[in-house]
């Protein structure tokens, strides 16, 4: 496999039309993700992060602009993008194991049945759910569903990881496990995967990313893209104490906050009026 | 019996014949011929197919899925529409009547008394056709002076009369007898107005007459013998018929032996032509230039009768049938 998996968003706009009214979710978004790069997106709720993932994967079609994965324009979804959806999107009629098995089987057509089985088991183990192999998603807890969804994506070995708040429903320890697993998977092969990672946790973004895109809303756009200069491998403990880290974090917040100052004030006023 | 063995020596394989019927005592001739083995004696291998209404039966004939069948006035209607079917014999005649609640029986002294009444009928049944004719001939406008309610089945007509939703109903044998057993009264019979009128006719595909003439004649011969059997052994005949018609045997016997209907394989050309004219006059079919004579072939029945008569020259039943034939089929 040749990993020419840079991602390019060219002047993307996305307008949803609902009940006759139209709502601009994204406006003139440009983004270049290099081959093997790990980019995080941070932004307020509803700023269009999930929409960007849907667009890159080909699930939705932009109102304006073009998207390329490698040199190919995105026309329809395909198995080159692995996705962890914000709402997990497991198939409810398949058990945890079957969900992974099914995805692996169809994403990698040249694997033998045995290999598929083994892969599915391995990744279910990796997220700590081998005991819940035969459980249907309806009987899993929120965090368990999310881990199955993560395992499914990794097991598919896609070129591109598109992850939408993948660790949001996990407790801190499981979150750490998963972060480590992600970094491991990312840097494992001959060449690195290209990763687009949506998170609300600034520390997580700082720990994982090469660059962080900060978004703002109404209409959703990318406000600024910040390079994260820390060398890899990064150590969770030692990193968070450094001065660079704290400065960067503060800067990130300032960009995120700045345009929200007014909202804060208006909300505060309302709450007092209550 | 010697005939039988002789036949068997001459012909090794029996002629296959697929006959369609309706489950009514009007088709008694067919049932008796089958049960008494007359078909077999004529070296016919008969398979019987039951239909619930005439239209489907005629369709099966047209589609060549059955060879021959005895169905109400449908052959005439289909012939008028250009279907290549021909009447070669008959099964039953007369046998329709008007039923009312007993307390109302006295109200109908003449046909005039039907004016303004509501009458239930089963469309296209013989009774329906002939009583429409009766009323028209009596100067009653069947559209203006009567309310005719068409209902799907004779049993439902009985219910409509009993529940008082209609004043009178037109049904046929054995439903007249059934109605009487339930306390209703028959106040008029069709033969009072159209003596000897035909009911179910035997029809075949015109194209097949030449090729299969022999088996058709054999079939008619069997029916002629049934005719005699029914008249000479009525009780056994009722037993035979009851295998096909699930009506209380006493009602069946009453229906098969009373004088309000008759069973006969005679094609009754005159009757058919009358019926055809009637169908036109009551507006059931249009006059589109079809000559019904082209759709009646009495020669098969004539041949069958003659062949029987050469075997049994002095049989009074067969002779009387011959007399009827000469009368009705010129």
């Amino acid at each position, binding site marked *: 496999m040749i990993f020419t998996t840079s991602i390019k968003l060219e002047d993307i706009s996305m307008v949803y039309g609902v009940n006759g009214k139209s709502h601009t979710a994204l406006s003139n978004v440009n983004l270049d993700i290099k081959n093997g790069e790990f980019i995080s997106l941070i932004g307020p709720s509803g700023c269009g992060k999930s929409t960007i993932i849907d667009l890159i994967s080909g699930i939705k079609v932009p109102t304006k602009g073009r998207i390329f994965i490698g040199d190919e324009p995105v026309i329809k979804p395909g198995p080159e993008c692995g996705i962890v959806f914000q709402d997990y999107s497991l198939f409810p009629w398949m058990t945890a194991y079957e969900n992974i098995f099914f995805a692996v089987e169809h994403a990698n057509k040249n694997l033998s049945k045995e290999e598929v089985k083994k892969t599915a088991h391995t990744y279910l183990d990796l997220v700590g759910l081998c005991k819940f192999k035969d459980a249907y998603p309806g009987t899993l807890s929120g965090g368990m569903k999310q881990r199955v969804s993560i395992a499914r994506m990794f097991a598919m070995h896609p070129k591109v990881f598109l992850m939408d708040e993948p660790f949001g429903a996990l407790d801190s320890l499981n979150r750490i496990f998963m972060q480590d697993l992600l970094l491991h998977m990312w840097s494992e092969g001959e060449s690195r995967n290209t990763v687009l990672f949506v998170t609300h946790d600034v520390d997580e973004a700082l720990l994982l990313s090469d660059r962080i895109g900060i978004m703002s809303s109404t209409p959703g756009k990318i406000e600024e893209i910040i390079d994260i200069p820390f060398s890899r491998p990064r150590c969770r403990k030692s990193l968070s104490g450094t001065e660079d880290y704290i400065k960067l974090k503060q800067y990130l917040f300032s960009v995120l906050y700045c345009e929200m100052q007014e909202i804060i004030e208006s909300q505060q006023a309302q709450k007092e009026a209550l | 019996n010697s005939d039988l063995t002789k036949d068997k020596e001459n012909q090794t394989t029996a002629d296959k014949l697929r006959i369609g019927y309706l489950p009514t005592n009007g088709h008694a001739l067919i049932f008796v011929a089958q049960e008494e083995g007359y078909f077999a004696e004529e070296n016919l291998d008969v398979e019987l197919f039951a239909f619930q209404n005439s239209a489907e039966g005629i369709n099966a004939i047209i589609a060549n899925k059955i060879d021959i069948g005895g169905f109400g006035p449908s052959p005439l209607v289909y012939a008028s529409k250009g279907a290549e079917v021909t009447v070669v014999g008959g099964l039953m005649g007369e046998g329709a009547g008007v039923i009312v609640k007993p307390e109302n029986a006295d109200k109908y002294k003449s046909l005039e008394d039907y004016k303004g009444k509501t009458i239930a009928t089963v469309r296209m049944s013989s009774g329906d056709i002939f009583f429409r004719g009766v009323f028209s001939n009596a100067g009653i406008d069947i559209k203006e002076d009567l309310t005719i309610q068409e*209902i799907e089945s004779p049993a439902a007509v009985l219910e409509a009369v009993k529940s008082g939703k209609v004043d009178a109903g037109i049904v046929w044998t054995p439903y007249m007898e059934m109605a009487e057993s339930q306390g209703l009264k028959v106040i008029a019979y069709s033969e009072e107005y159209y003596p000897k009128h035909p009911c179910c006719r035997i029809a075949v595909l015109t194209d097949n007459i030449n090729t299969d003439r022999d088996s058709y004649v054999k079939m008619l011969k069997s029916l002629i013998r049934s005719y005699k059997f029914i008249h000479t052994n009525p009780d056994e005949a009722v037993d035979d018929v009851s295998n096909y018609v699930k009506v209380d045997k006493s009602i069946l016997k009453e229906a098969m032996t009373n004088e309000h209907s008759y069973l006969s394989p005679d094609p009754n050309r005159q009757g058919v032509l009358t019926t055809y004219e009637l169908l036109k006059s009551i507006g059931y079919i249009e006059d589109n230039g079809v000559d019904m004579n082209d759709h009646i072939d009495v020669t098969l029945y004539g041949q069958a009768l003659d062949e029987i008569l050469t075997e049994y020259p002095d049989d009074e039943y067969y002779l009387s049938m011959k007399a009827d034939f000469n009368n009705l089929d010129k």
Partner: protein
Amino acid sequence: MKFKLNKTGILTFVILIAVFILTVAVPDAPSQSVDDNSAFLAVLILILAAFIIEIYRKPKETERITDIFLILSVVIFLWEVLIGKLILLDPFLFPGPARVFAVFQDDYELIINGLFSSLTFLVGGYLLALALAIPAGLYIGWRKRLFNVAYPISKAISPIPPTAYLPYSIVLLPTFSAASTFLIFIGAFWPILVGTIFGVFGIDKRLINTARTLGLSERVMMKDILLPAALPSIFSGAMIALIISFITLTVAEMIAATSGLGWYIIYNHQFANYDMVVAGIIVVGAVVMVITYFFDRIQAYCLRWQNI
């Protein structure tokens, strides 16, 4: 000019015009000929006109429209050529288009009257079925204990053929038309009931749990939670019921009817007027399409929250 025609569209045009020319120029075989085939020609012109108007009116849906009209014209083409001209099938049972459309010219009054008289039964019976089956289904689906009893019972009753109801409804109901309406009702009842019960069963338990925490009264639970949540399935049952109502029409109008679409079909069926039978069926098909058009609109509106 905004009027753009793709290949399919051109093909449709060509076929329709070919049929037109064929009908005018080539004489019918005697068994398929009619005195006056102007009705058929009028229908062809109507289709062409409708095609052009539709394409003009909805330029965005060109593909859909041309597809439908293409199929329609191919069907008419084959019908006219194979059956009308070449008579590949028994002309007695299979009337050509000229004969069938001539029926509309002759019988239009009868058909239109029939349409209205049928609609009274249909609307009455169908609405009654909706009004009873949906609440019953919601309640049965919701109350486990009731379900355990009512469901097997209704399964045992449901396969009773409408013909078996005939004599009973004649005896027990006050008028013949009440009996006819009852038959439509009973035919439409089961599909809606089954659709509703299955719909309630399919509701995501989490939504029901959420609703339960609001302490809703049973009535509100039915009306505001179970009904909308089961609605997709109810619509499916109601659509099937609609189809079945029209099928039952031929049985319902066996009772003392003197007009009606069902009556028209069985009446002519009995008299072997297959051209009229086919014409009647075309009318029924057209009526169903018109009704389901509104049905689909209502459905789209009621389910506007779905799949966005």
